[in-house]
């Protein structure tokens, strides 16, 4: 059951409507919860607005938060396109981030070289952590859903050990959070705020619009080009649409899936860059967790399209700020935003299923 061919523009538009309708439906639920908690919905939406878009600083914060979300969503999307469920990008970014940070700590070199080196190191680390589940899937047919979840737990424990033990950068007896040594200044990510201000967008300096934004944009363009403009991308999409047909057409299904899986892991390795190289300047076990799971939702909402992920990651960043706004200004707890995110996926996929069926029957009528 793939998306219908783009034969009739009205049907094409209809097929794109699911994300919007799902978003609206989940907002209705949010309003219902706000009313249920005896709060004024207008006041709640004022709080949300105030926290997410009332100033250049707030908008900048939304953009900043959306950067790791985008990379996470992109990572899931490329895997999904090949029919691979990479639930392991959580572990992949913890490991990838550490490998990147090590390149930043222990490899002295000039900035022009150091920045690409740490990015590539992070990608290699992420791909490494996807390797075993990818091989197990391809060679032995083991569901990647379960192995990647196991590898998340293994990866987190491993990173925790390394940061506490052999790679610890702390003098003994210092009670800071366990962390690596400081990343060399040549590898730190600078900010683009000045550039944005020169364009007339007045983002203050405390908002993190750093080089990771450039990394995200480059990755988005590369993945888009790969998926829609190359033979490999065509093969990935073919495999994701139908393994049987692809095999019949002579595509090496296993090889394509392993490739997409590793690429997904490599992009996942970049999720932590912003926090490690721009915000903290060292690696710790306490970098934000859960971004990998958010990526699944972000990619699904965008129907696994690299351009759609831009919007859905901004949406998730907005929701995050909205959650803080609600928490601080009303009795509605922050956790509501998680529930809303889960519901939003369910609404979108269900509405999409209904639309796909409706479009198909419409088309049958037109044909007969």
């Amino acid at each position, binding site marked *: 059951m793939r998306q219908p061919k783009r034969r009739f523009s009205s049907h094409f538009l209809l097929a794109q409507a699911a994300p919007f309708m799902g978003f609206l439906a989940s907002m209705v639920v949010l309003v219902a919860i706000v009313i249920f908690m005896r709060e004024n919905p207008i006041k709640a939406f004022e709080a949300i607005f105030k926290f997410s878009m009332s100033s250049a600083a707030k908008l900048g914060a939304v953009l900043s938060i959306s950067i790791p979300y985008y990379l996470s969503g992109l990572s899931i999307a490329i895997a999904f396109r090949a029919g691979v469920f990479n639930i392991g990008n959580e572990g992949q970014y913890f490991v990838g981030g550490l490998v990147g940070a090590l390149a930043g700590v222990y490899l002295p070199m000039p900035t022009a070289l150091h920045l690409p080196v740490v990015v590539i190191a992070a990608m290699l680390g992420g791909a490494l952590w996807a390797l075993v589940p990818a091989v197990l899937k391809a060679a032995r047919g083991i569901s990647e859903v379960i192995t990647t979840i196991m590898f998340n737990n293994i990866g987190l424990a491993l990173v925790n050990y390394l940061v506490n033990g052999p790679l610890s950068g702390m003098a003994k007896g210092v009670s800071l959070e366990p962390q690596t040594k400081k990343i060399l200044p040549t590898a730190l990510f600078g900010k683009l705020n000045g550039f944005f201000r020169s364009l007339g967008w007045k983002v203050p300096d405390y908002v993190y619009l750093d080089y990771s934004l450039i990394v995200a944009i480059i990755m988005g363009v590369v993945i888009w080009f790969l998926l829609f403009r190359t033979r490999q991308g065509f093969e990935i999409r073919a495999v994701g649409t139908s393994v049987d047909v692809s095999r019949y057409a002579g595509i090496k299904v296993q090889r394509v899936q392993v490739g997409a899986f590793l690429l997904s892991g490599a992009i996942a390795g970049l999720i932590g860059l912003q926090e490690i190289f721009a915000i903290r300047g060292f690696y710790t076990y306490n970098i934000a967790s859960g971004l990998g799971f958010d990526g*699944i939702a972000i990619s699904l909402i965008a129907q696994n399209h690299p351009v759609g992920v831009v919007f859905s990651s901004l949406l998730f960043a907005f929701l995050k700020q909205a959650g803080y706004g609600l928490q601080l200004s009303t009795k509605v707890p922050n956790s509501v935003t998680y529930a809303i995110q889960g519901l939003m996926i*369910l609404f979108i996929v269900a509405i999409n299923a209904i639309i796909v069926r409706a479009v198909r029957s419409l088309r049958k009528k037109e044909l007969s």
Partner: protein
Amino acid sequence: MDISFLVYFLAKGLEISSPIAFAALGGVFSERAGVVNIALEGIMGVTTLTLVWGAITFQSVWIGLVVAVFTGILMSLIHAVVTITFKVDHVVSGVAINVFSIGLSRFLCQSFFGAETQSKINPYLFPKLLGINSLAFWLIPAVAIAAFVLYKTVFGLRLRSVGENPEAADTLGVNVTAMRYAGVLISGALCGIAGATLFADKWITNMVAGRGFIALAAVIFGRWDPTGAVLASLLFGYADTFRIIFESRIPIPGQFVQMFPYVLAVVVLAGIVGRSRAPAWDGRNYEKGED
């Protein structure tokens, strides 16, 4: 090593295994009917919370158990509607329900107890037997009942047939949709019991801690068979018990000990290939009269 320690180890292991085992039994019913249910994890988190709420509110842990089972059924109903009626990909729906469950349980905890990450202490506990939650011993009759229902009843035959070959089942007059709903709802109810065996005396956010996912590995390792799945769960559970009891005495870093059950799961999965076959229609949606 004296005998009382051995009894303690065996009983403790059963207690630690039972949440995994009940969830795995649920997974067997759901997957035998052809629906992959990775929402087990999230559903357990919610049922554990509603159990604590039910026990405190009605001052009886048994009513709490009923509430938990009911919640499990309701939560799995979402999965059933989305996957069976709307024919959405099963893993997508499961992931969404897991995300939803995190928010829902914390939201409910906030509304019930006024704190987001942990509940009040619940003084109404299940009776103890051999020093552990007696509910864990239910596992033994539960396996027997599950195996009987699955292999010796008409219902079980129909349930397995829709997971194996829904077209043939449909032709023979089996209601595929109803059977699949039944499989998923049973898994939800069993998640309620799983949550009850997990619960100590209060609910803490993230207390399920991956047991639902380990249960899924146990389902595969146990070849989609109730007895096999429970034995696999016992393997994981006892491995974890061993870790907990001996953690302080083993001269290797704690993080490696923590990894152990997960590494074991991967190794076990990698080792059993070729000997374990999923129901033919597991994870696939069935549409009447489709090409």
